[in-house]
């Protein structure tokens, strides 16, 4: 099947109005823009035969090579070939910041520097690659897919394949990790479903790792050009920042442009820093499309902000934490509106910062003592503060979906409950979290609650797993639906207890009359049986049935920027401070993370193990970005220089140190139960904290790292460079 065979399949919509349209087709025909773009599909009875056929087909392909555009410089040069000639340039997004007061503050600042910071390309890399099975039978399309957003996938499949949405079922069973990469609705899903419809038999496609590395989204790949004004005291007066993101070919749904807007929006994070002007440009190149990845722009922005702070500290001869301290947000400043419009609702920014300094200081001494006798090892500590935007609008990312989610609760005749929610499980613990919260809200035992998610036939329309939002929107909708069924259950119980409903309380799975301990009790099972089956037992006029549907959308969330481009795009904000203590071997350049601390605040904690797992796992991915993973391309040919885990270095147990966490709990004032998000937090801090620590360790060499990943090569080059200078 090639591009011609999918003529009757729709083109992906370009919903985001600030983006130039890419008109993505499920299979690419005349112009192929990156290695990994799907151009043909082969169906066979087994994978080995299919791969033979692909090889044979590849040998017959006729390709005229065009000259590739592989870097930001190439993409923006005047002679650049254009990926989309109709655009007139290679910029898919170009937003120019205009804050005259920031420029005036810069001009007035006693000192200034400009610098370019670079964050490399990574990929989310779930251990389970993507996979799709589709079957078309009796006029219905069923798709089993490893995906983070089952309903969004369903809407997209129906739209492109010309089916009624009710005739499409999407099931996402036990997704083996996502980290953002599986929020996108990919071409392969459409092609497999289309093949299944054409062939009239089930079709399966399992992505292999080599395919995954070029065909699933990449991320990050940003450079920030900053202009910073400061004084001798180390006060940073103002900063202009131009975020330039290489989004690859751009042919992915939803587009990968939003993270770069988040970078500028959250970079000042935990700091009171009003004078920031951000411009954002996303360029297209002949690389795999960039998309969502855990952190979603925040790690890049925070890396730049923290490196700027460290540079200023060095220039004025201060401890970097003394530059941070006067800027750190105080509780009295809550809610605090950041320059980009994000309104931080609450947090413990100062407390987490102060606590992490205690931990880092003690650890530094321990590690210094450990390496005392080795003059060739240098030890350093690095810090970072940041906020994590939680429960964001999806409109900025998709141009179509917003911030909604939903739950239905059905009380079964035996007194158990089926709780179905629109969020999704991708390994982050959403099923256990939902069961725990629903059991609590319904006054039931954990074992009495069955949780349903990830099946569009059984769960209400919801937006799935992304944006550190699941716990909040799940809780918001589950609590509301639970109240409805509980109200009715109390009326039924009151009738049985011959009491007023207002006097009925639910404790330990039984309804009793308030203030009569040891008195008559009615169980959930009795209430449920009456409510659903033995409706003859109901009070006159009360209809049978014990179920409810509820939706939740944070009311203060903004979906559109105002005239000045400011937007309050996330409903609540977690915060954290990290400290990394590293030992750097001057001989080899080897960096070892000796100790790592996270002092974190995600509001009310529902399930401590789930929170711990999210933070520690997030830190591991942050370390991967700080020190290991990279996706380089040959600038001449456009060939990816990675095809396996031999080139894409995913850190193992030997590289990831133990991570010590501590928590503060600042409940979110406007969120259900005070819950905030935690899914992305851990990933945001390590690039900044580790880079800061390495530069501390190598202070004698005047190392000022501006680029990740920080590798032994970085260290050795810096040491050589400093020798050359002296």
């Amino acid at each position, binding site marked *: 099947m090639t591009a011609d065979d999918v003529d009757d399949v729709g083109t992906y919509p370009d919903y985001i109005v600030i983006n130039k349209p890419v008109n993505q087709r499920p299979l690419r025909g005349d112009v192929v823009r990156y290695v990994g773009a799907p151009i043909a599909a*082969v169906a066979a009875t*087994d*994978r*080995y*035969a299919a791969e*033979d*056929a692909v090889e*044979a*087909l590849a040998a017959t392909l006729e390709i005229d090579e065009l000259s590739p555009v592989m870097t930001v410089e190439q993409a923006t040069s005047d002679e650049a070939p254009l990926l989309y000639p109709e655009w007139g340039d290679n910029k898919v997004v170009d937003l120019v910041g205009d804050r005259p007061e920031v420029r005036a503050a810069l001009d007035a600042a006693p000192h200034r520097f400009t610098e370019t910071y670079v964050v490399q390309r990574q990929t989310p*890399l*779930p*251990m*389970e*690659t993507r996979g799709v099975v589709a079957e078309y039978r009796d006029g219905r399309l069923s798709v089993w897919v490893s995906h983070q957003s089952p309903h969004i996938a369903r809407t997209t499949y129906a739209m492109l394949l010309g089916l009624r949405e009710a005739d499409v079922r999407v099931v996402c069973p*036990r*997704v*083996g*990790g996502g*980290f953002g990469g599986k929020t996108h609705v990919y071409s392969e899903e459409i092609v497999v479903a289309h093949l299944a419809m054409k062939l009239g038999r089930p079709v399966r496609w399992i992505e*292999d*790792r080599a395919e995954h590395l070029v065909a699933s989204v990449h991320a990050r790949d940003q450079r920030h050009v900053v202009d910073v004004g400061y004084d001798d005291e180390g006060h940073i007066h103002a900063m202009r920042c131009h975020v330039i993101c290489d989004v690859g070919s751009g042919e992915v749904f939803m587009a990968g442009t939003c993270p770069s807007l988040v970078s500028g929006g959250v970079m000042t994070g935990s700091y009171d820093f009003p004078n920031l002007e951000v411009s954002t440009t996303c360029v297209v190149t002949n690389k795999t499309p960039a998309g969502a990845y855990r952190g979603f722009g925040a790690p890049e922005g925070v890396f730049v902000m923290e490196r700027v702070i460290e540079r200023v500290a060095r220039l004025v001869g201060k401890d970097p934490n003394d530059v941070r301290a006067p800027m750190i947000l105080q509780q009295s400043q809550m809610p605090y509106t950041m320059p980009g419009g994000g309104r931080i609702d609450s947090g413990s920014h100062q407390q987490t910062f102060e606590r992490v300094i205690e931990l880092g200081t003690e650890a530094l001494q321990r590690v210094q003592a450990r390496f005392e006798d080795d003059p060739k090892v240098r030890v350093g500590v690095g810090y970072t503060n940041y906020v994590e935007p939680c429960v964001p609008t999806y409109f900025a990312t998709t141009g179509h979906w917003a911030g909604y989610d939903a739950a239905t609760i059905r009380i079964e005749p035996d007194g158990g409950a089926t709780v179905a929610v629109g969020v999704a499980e*991708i*390994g*982050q*613990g959403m099923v256990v979290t939902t069961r725990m919260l629903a059991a609590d809200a319904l006054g039931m035992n954990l074992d009495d609650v069955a949780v349903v998610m990830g099946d569009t036939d059984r769960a209400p329309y919801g937006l799935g797993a992304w944006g550190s939002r699941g716990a909040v929107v799940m809780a918001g909708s589950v609590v509301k639906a639970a109240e409805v069924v509980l109200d009715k259950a109390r009326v039924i119980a009151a009738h049985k207890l011959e009491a007023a409903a207002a006097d009925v309380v639910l404790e330990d799975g039984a309804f009793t009359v308030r203030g009569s301990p040891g008195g008559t009790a009615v169980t959930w099972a009795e209430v449920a049986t009456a409510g659903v089956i033995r409706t003859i037992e109901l009070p006159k006029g009360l209809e049978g049935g014990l179920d409810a549907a509820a939706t939740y959308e944070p009311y203060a969330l903004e979906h559109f920027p105002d005239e000045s481009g400011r937007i309050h795009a996330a409903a609540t904000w977690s915060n954290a401070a990290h400290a990394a203590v590293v030992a750097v071997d001057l001989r080899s350049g080897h960096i070892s993370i000796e100790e790592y601390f996270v002092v974190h605040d995600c509001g009310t904690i529902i399930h401590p*193990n*789930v929170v*711990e*797992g999210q933070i*520690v*796992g*997030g*830190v*591991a*991915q942050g370390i991967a970005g700080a020190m290991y993973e990279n996706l380089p391309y040959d600038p001449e040919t456009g060939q990816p220089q990675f095809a*396996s*885990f*031999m080139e894409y270095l*995913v850190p*193992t*147990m*030997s590289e*990831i140190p*133990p*991570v010590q966490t501590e928590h503060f709990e600042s409940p979110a004032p406007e969120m259900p139960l005070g819950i905030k998000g935690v899914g992305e937090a*851990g990933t945001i801090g390590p690039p900044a904290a580790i880079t800061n620590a390495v530069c501390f360790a190598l202070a004698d060499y005047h190392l000022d790292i501006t680029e990740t990943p920080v590798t032994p090569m970085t260290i050795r080059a810096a040491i050589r460079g400093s020798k050359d200078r002296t």
Partner: protein
Amino acid sequence: MTSDTTAENRRVPIRLRVNGSTESAAVPPRLLLSDFLREGLGLTGTHVGCEHGVCGACTVLIDGTAARSCLTLAVQADEADITTIEGLAEPDGTLSTVQQAFADHFSLQCGFCTAGFLMSIAGELEQGMTEPEIRELLSGNLCRCTGYQSIVEAAVELAGTREA
């Protein structure tokens, strides 16, 4: 579309024990053991994360030793005794000590890597191993979710408390 029908249609008879039961099959010489287990025997608990020997998700025990089923051909397993994740728990579903330790320590999130870790531990972990030794031992298994900490905790407990 096939280029060399003779080679592709060739089948080699193999006989092996998998989780205690004897299996016979005629397999193409190029069939990977991981594919034979998953597709041929329907034992999909063995996961495939890279097929080039790095991630460890496909680890099974071959004659008691942890090995990568993606780097092994099914024909090489002729006469071998294979244990997969499906063979780890008791027949009545009671978890093995290794599995129970993972459950107790929250050592999995998405669970995709878990079978590989469990088989590596079941095959290679020795009593009294220190944490650095364990980290070395299990550095051939990738996990993208947990940051490894909870896995190390489970393994350390096993190295200290598991009966030899």
